[in-house]
């Protein structure tokens, strides 16, 4: 299950165990709701629970990043495992974000 936490101007999205087209469908919509209704300028995707992701997951992250940047905010990614890290790397997502992972890990 996806969890959403707002703290100050920061929205943390704790992503589900499997991030695919099916689980992504509500995430984009939910994030857009938060961006519109709350004063968010920092979006954090937390991969602590995520063991699977495909290109649909990449799509939703890029799309949310575009939206948060449009309102002058930024996106961060944290707690991603080795496999997820590889997928994010080959998709070029790290060029869009500030990584908060363990220092020296990336």
């Amino acid at each position: 299950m996806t969890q959403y936490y707002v703290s100050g101007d920061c929205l943390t999205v704790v992503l589900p165990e499997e991030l695919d087209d099916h689980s992504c469908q509500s995430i984009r919509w939910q994030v857009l709701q938060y961006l519109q209704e709350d004063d968010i300028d920092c979006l954090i995707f937390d991969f602590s629970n995520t063991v699977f992701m495909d290109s649909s997951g990449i799509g939703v992250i890029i799309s949310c990043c575009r939206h948060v940047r449009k309102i002058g905010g930024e996106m961060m990614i944290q707690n991603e495992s080795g496999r997820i890290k590889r997928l994010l790397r080959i998709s070029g997502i790290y060029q869009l974000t500030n990584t908060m992972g363990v220092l020296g890990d990336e």
Partner: protein
Amino acid sequence: MKEKIMKEKMTVTFESYSWNEAFARVTAAAFLLHQNPDMEELDDIRTAVSEAVTNAIIHGYRDSHGMVTMEMEIEDKVVSVMIHDDGCGIPDVAKAREPMYSSCPELERSGMGFSFMEAFMDELSVKSKVGCGTTVHMKKRLGVKKYE
């Protein structure tokens, strides 16, 4: 002594609901379990299956509904996967396979489905005919260390 099985096949056909993307990749992984693939190989195949099945559901059937068939075969450590839909078909396969290309940019999709299939499998071929559906064939040899 039990006969050594050199070749094994399976087929599943399921409805084009998006929750069946998970069903397909779990089934694919379960089929390969007794081959003792390593986690990386299993993840690669799960990802590639997920991409092909998602394409069938999202692009093949779009707003309509139909059946998706997944066939798998393993022979001498080579896994073959076939994913077929009877959906709308792809007008220009070469264009669809280009990285970052998406036929529905308004849905804000990544356009990386075929790129992921290519990256994680050894072979990929796509046959499609407008109005008749799409068939994706993929192959991967198990037991080859790629990412050291």
